[in-house]
């Protein structure tokens, strides 16, 4: 029996059986056409898992070298200490030349291998433009069915942080003292304001204070220009100084995460739905380009369509497949 057959065991995934979760992740990474239907089915079954509805999906992003891996490691330990289970997806870029990748996140993490409540998976972007791997989106959904909290950690500023908005309930941007370019991006509105800002490596109190003050200034400038966090005007982005090596600021970070999750309670379903709509459109337009979009009636129409159909029980993957078939059929009709 091919081992992948076991991947379609949503019950085992929902009970956080590590072998089942791992096989499910292997399946969602599988790009063969014959895997596609099974992925679609699996994700549909996991969609309404009890954990998935109540859980918290966190996107953690920031420029290279700011200590995201170590921060994730420390955060994971603290989350576990609070009695919650956690799944982590660590995304690293693939080499464009070789297609290979070096997934080094685990090297910076210390974890207890016997802990059934912590699961870490590294993913390569597989050369995809946009930072977040195609698979990361699905991987997040698999882990969300199994664990209380899911953290997707991704490197970069700009595109990846836009992508992460589609899958995360809460977007955390991590920088370090002296990340001047991020300040400029925020001020200029090139970058969307995250839900939580973290100044990591805040080992030197003075430097950290200054960095926090600079960020506060940048946020004010951005707000004055009309920007708001995740288009959510009622949320004020907290700025937290952490030191992953000293372990300071981690409790504040978890409190802020919980605070944002609570803040979202009423709008969470809509926010996730919005993310799914966006993902569906992304998937479709990456596959078929502008021509595909215009053939099916343009962006606004597709968006409305996605909103309706996703309410009707479709998942982004199944809907995208559906739309693809329509597009191909439409192509056949044009001369």
């Amino acid at each position, binding site marked *: 029996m*091919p*081992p992948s057959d076991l991947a379609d065991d949503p019950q085992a995934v929902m009970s956080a059986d590590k072998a089942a979760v791992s096989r499910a992740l292997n399946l969602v990474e*599988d790009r063969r056409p014959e895997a596609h239907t099974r992925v679609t089915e699996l994700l549909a079954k996991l969609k309404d898992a009890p954990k998935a509805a109540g859980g918290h999906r966190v996107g953690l992003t920031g420029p290279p070298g700011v200590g995201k891996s170590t921060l994730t490691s420390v955060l994971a330990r603290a989350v576990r200490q609070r009695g919650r289970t956690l799944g982590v997806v660590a995304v690293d870029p693939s*080499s464009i030349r*070789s*297609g*290979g990748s*070096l997934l080094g996140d*685990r090297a910076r993490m210390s974890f207890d291998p016997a802990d059934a409540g912590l699961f870490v998976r*590294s993913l390569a972007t597989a050369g995809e433009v946009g930072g977040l791997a195609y698979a990361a989106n699905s991987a997040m959904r698999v882990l969300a069915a199994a664990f209380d909290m899911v953290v997707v950690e991704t490197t970069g500023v700009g595109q990846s942080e836009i992508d992460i908005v589609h899958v995360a309930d809460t977007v955390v941007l991590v920088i370090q003292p002296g990340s001047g370019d991020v300040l400029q991006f925020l001020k200029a509105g090139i970058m969307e304001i995250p839900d939580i800002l973290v100044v990591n490596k805040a080992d030197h109190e003075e430097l950290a204070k200054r960095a926090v003050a600079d960020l506060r200034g940048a946020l004010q400038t951005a707000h004055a220009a009309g920007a708001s966090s995740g288009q959510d005007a009622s949320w004020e982005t907290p700025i937290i100084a952490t030191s992953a090596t000293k372990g300071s600021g981690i409790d504040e970070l978890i409190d802020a995460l919980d605070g944002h999750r609570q803040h979202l309670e009423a709008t969470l379903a809509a926010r996730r739905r919005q993310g799914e709509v966006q993902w569906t459109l992304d998937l479709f337009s990456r596959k078929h380009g502008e021509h595909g979009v215009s053939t099916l009636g343009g962006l606004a129409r597709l968006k409305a369509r996605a909103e309706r159909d996703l309410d009707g029980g479709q998942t982004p993957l199944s809907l995208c497949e559906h739309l693809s078939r329509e597009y191909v059929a439409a192509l056949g009709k044009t001369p």
Partner: protein
Amino acid sequence: MAEYGKRERDKPWIMRTYSGHSTAAASNELYRTNLAKGQTGLSVAFDLPTQTGYDADDPLARGEVGKVGVPVSHIGDMRALFDGLPLDQMNTSMTINATAVWLLSLYVAAAEDQGVDPSVLRGTTQNDIIKEYLSRGTHIFPPAASMRLITDLISYTVNDVPKWNPINICSYHLQEAGATPTQELAYALVTAIGVLDAVKATGRVPESEFGNVVGRMSFFVNAGIRFVEELCKMRAFVELWDRVTQERYGVTDPKQRRFRYGVQVNSLGLTEQQPENNMIRIVLEMLAVTLSKDARARAIQLPAWNEALGLPRPWDQQWSLRAQQILAYESDLLEYPDLFKGSEVVEAQTQHLVDSAWAEVQEVLKRGGAVEAVESGYIKQKLVESNAARLRAIENGDQIVVGVNKYVESAPSPLTENLDDAILTVDPEVDANQRAALGRWKEERDNAAVEQALAELQRVANTDENMMAASIAAAHAGVTTGEWANTLRQVWGEYRAPTGVAGATVKASGSGASADVIDRLRARLSELETRMGRRAKLLVGKPGLDGHSNGAEQIAIKARDVGFDVVYEGIRVSPEQIVASALEEGVHLIGLSILSGSHLALVPEVAERLRASGLGDVPLVVGGIIPDADAERLRHEGIAAVYTPKDFELDNIMSDLIDLVDRQHAAE
């Protein structure tokens, strides 16, 4: 014209052999034999649990006790190690870093027990934890805590043990990790600057006495086979250190500005093929550090000809010692003043190294200094890149290694006729015996005194008081190595250092045949991806306490460059962690790297745990210093492939790995 040869002979350097294994008693016997053979100093090799702060009964110590050195768990072991060796007459070098404060405390306490006043002790503690993050991998604590231990030891010995060399800044391991001569010079100097700045910042040493601190700094240097360049490197060291001490620290006494260094010649370049050739390499490398009177080593230890095969026997070490003695006592080398003063070639090459190293020193200082450049991964990445270039040159044949990539034909060698007898094997009972002895020690000591000593240690760790006094008291109280380190782990935490591999860029693999090979491997992996639906994923694991990560890093980088998705976990992971990672990551293949000789304990355990987790199908390969008989046994137990230093062609290894994944996929 006067005849130079009439001068009085210079005093020879201190001759040592890096040794220690199995137990304190066995090592004591070895030291006595070595001294009887004319060795003039001791160089203690500690086992990995002792170096990384674990007792023999810790699960992480499994398979490592007594392997690469002697286990010293408490003052009883230290007494046994130096039984009958009067410590006031010894010059003892201890290769110890993260636990240097502790081992020196045990040494001081043992001296006090012998009735020796600590102030007369002579010797060296390596105590360079910075390079552990870069190369050797026996660090425990985060950089700030490590720097505090380094400076505590220095400010203690400068006052209380004035003839002690409190730190040996190691450029040795930087070269092993791939450093070019320029990088070796630069990174050793920035480490020294980082340490001196930190000592200064403690405010514990009065300005007027700072010259004493500078004067006690010593270095531990490597010498490779390009011996003219190495000779110039030593001269460059002398010049640069004089500049740093004078300009940065204002030291006026030329004696305190002298570049004092010891050497172990390059072990990394020793070959498994035609291993007898290594003796020639060792002698050439020794010349580089002895020929210049103006830049001569003060202490030398030579590796043995068969180190790439396994642990050397006493005879092998004796052969290396004889090489030193012949040069120092038989030849006329020590009768002459400096041979190269005024040599145009040597001076120009030295100047070139001085200039390029100074530029790199400035670059690191601009980035915030050694500690910052370690934490950011800057230095590590540079080393990994240089090492990749070096290995590629050997693989391509651009750099000739006799017996390896050229002149490989050989008549049967009588020295390696019976290969399994050509190395030392450690009694497998050592592990259990040490554990039992430790149990007895813990039963017989005054546990109330131990508790009290540990409480005091913890209190001091939370302040900025010097750690030495509390550690010496703990040594007398019977505290163990694991207890000392665990107490501090609780206060300071542990640190996992940057691996330098993720960002390392490797120059395109040249052109012609080698580029074709890479292209073919990439094409095969892409084709395999199409069939498997996922890209082949490889887990590179380093089980056990061995921190020599160069091999694992280079395999990881090469595998990425031919197109694997590579999960690299860094050093010091347990078999449980490796299996947990394999399960969570959904890998197609696992590669383990072990250089400490504990492969027979660790590899089968990983295999067994994989089977128990339902991952018995995932092919497992291993690389390391693995004797043939052990390799045979591992293959028999289902290990898919065993690689040793003679497998220098990484492309071939990659091809094998792709075959393994392909075959496994076909079987499913």
